[in-house]
């Protein structure tokens, strides 16, 4: 099966820009991706776009064609919605289409406008990723759902808030060199422990920020890349998706992510790699506990041991397997619909040696991107490898 080349990547700065429309954000990201790829816009055969809360944040549905227009592409366009995994599912669909020969050139990405809603409005908008009847109406918020999982993890496997704090500290440290990150500010463990509680045991610094931003990728078939002499050394070699029951209370385990495990196993098998081959990963750390659950689901840490990975230095920049060298959702920011494709962009740039933090992973050949929706009722995992250097 033909690999899928990442020909170009484009990201806006993630952060606080309430006045910017998502069409403006996506236009900027796509311009960068096209410039990076040297692929002409007229070669794009379709636009696959991820977005979650557009109806609530800017009263805009039917965003596919709007975003194709913003990117200057005349091609069919579809919006993909899987909560925080929206653009991860868009990437997966694009990979599938290119592999089966349906398309050679696709523009894939996502955007989210969130800060214009304010904290309460964004909290409400994010909550609709949970079951409205049985969770939201009982007062479950997005941080609240992860707090339920964090407490369940502590009860089942041990660990404490201080262990989680090391994850936040690590990801802030990684973001210092990422000039597109929302927070370029070092923090220490006491900052995290002393921050105001959001949903106990999680506090303000255990949570990703509310962010505006966009991501874009130009993906091509191997034959198109070769025929056009593209400089595109990184391929997506594996894709996987998993699903789970919507409401947290309907799951057997409250402290594990079976959907992410399913996605990871599928993606590893697809690429012909295993967890031991992974040199670096961008995982969906919307909350500190989410990074722990992701590492265990991806077999990068044994079940029950992911909690100590950051504290003991296994996942820091100079650790065995650096995790979230971009700063992660935690420090880079989490414009929901943009996140999955932005992770692919970060892994691509890290593997290509074009990332400010590439020095930590010199010679790396295999990276993984893990994107989760809601309380991980949806998950996509992609494996990226250097195929040509």
């Amino acid at each position, binding site marked *: 099966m033909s690999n899928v080349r990442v020909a170009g990547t484009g990201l806006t700065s993630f952060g606080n820009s309430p006045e910017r429309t998502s069409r403006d954000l996506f236009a900027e990201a796509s311009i960068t991706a096209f410039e990076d790829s040297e692929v002409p816009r007229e070669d794009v055969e379709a636009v696959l776009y991820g977005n979650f809360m557009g109806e609530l944040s800017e009263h805009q549905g039917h965003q596919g064609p709007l975003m194709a227009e913003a990117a200057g592409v005349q091609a069919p366009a579809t919006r993909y919605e899987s909560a925080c995994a929206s653009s991860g599912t868009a990437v997966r669909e694009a990979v599938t289409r290119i592999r089966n020969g349906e398309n050679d050139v696709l523009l894939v990405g996502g955007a989210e406008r969130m800060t214009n809603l304010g*904290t*309460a*409005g964004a*909290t*409400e908008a994010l*909550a609709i990723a949970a079951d409205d*009847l*049985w*969770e*939201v*109406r*009982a*007062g*479950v*918020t997005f*941080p*609240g759902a992860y*707090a*339920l*999982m*964090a*407490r*369940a993890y502590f*009860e089942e496997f041990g660990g404490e808030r201080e262990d989680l704090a090391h994850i936040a500290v690590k990801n802030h440290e990684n973001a210092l060199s990422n000039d597109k990150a929302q927070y370029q500010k070092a923090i220490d463990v006491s900052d995290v422990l002393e921050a*105001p*509680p*959001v*949903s*106990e*045991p*999680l506090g303000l610094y255990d949570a990703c920020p509310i962010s505006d931003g966009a991501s874009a990728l130009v993906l091509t078939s191997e034959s198109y890349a070769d025929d056009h002499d593209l400089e595109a050394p990184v391929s997506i070699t594996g894709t996987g998706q998993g699903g789970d*029951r919507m*409401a*947290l*209370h*309907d799951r057997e385990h*409250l402290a594990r992510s079976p959907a992410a495990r399913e996605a990871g196993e599928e993606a590893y098998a697809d690429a012909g790699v295993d967890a031991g081959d992974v040199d670096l990963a961008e995982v969906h750390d919307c909350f500190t506990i989410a990074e722990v659950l992701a590492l265990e689901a991806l077999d990068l840490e044994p079940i029950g041991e992911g909690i100590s990975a950051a504290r003991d230095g296994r996942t820091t920049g100079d650790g065995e397997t650096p995790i979230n060298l971009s700063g992660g959702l935690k420090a880079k920011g989490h414009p929901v619909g943009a996140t999955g494709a932005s992770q692919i962009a970060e892994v691509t740039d890290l593997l290509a040696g074009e990332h400010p933090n590439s020095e930590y992973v010199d010679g790396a050949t295999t990276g993984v991107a893990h994107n989760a929706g809601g309380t991980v009722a949806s998950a996509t995992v992609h494996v990226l490898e250097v195929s040509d250097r």
Partner: protein
Amino acid sequence: MTDGESDVADAGFDEWLAAAADGDATYLECANGHGSLPPRRVCPDCGSTDLAEADLPDTGDVRTFTVTHVPTPAFAEDAPYATAVVDFGPVSLTGQLVGIDLEDVETGLTVELEITVSETTGERVLSLRPV
């Protein structure tokens, strides 16, 4: 929730809340014994469409909980409040803990179902009271 939406009933769910408020909470049981919550026409575990109402057990145990300080606007006046996932045997539920100091909430706590009213919106809320 906007005012317009609150005027419209949610078939299955609203009836369940009303029954629960009268002390007659139920769950759905399929031909293979799987429990689930309404509204539902198909068992999510096995696909059976043969679903019958059964009485929810009187008490359940707290599996996990959180105390939320930053609520959605629908619970602005209620925060801080404790939310718990409670195991009732055939099904689990998520609800707000009432009748207990927040610092005394712990996993394993035995609770019974009670339908309360949100201080913010006046809407019914699925709640849980220690027995």
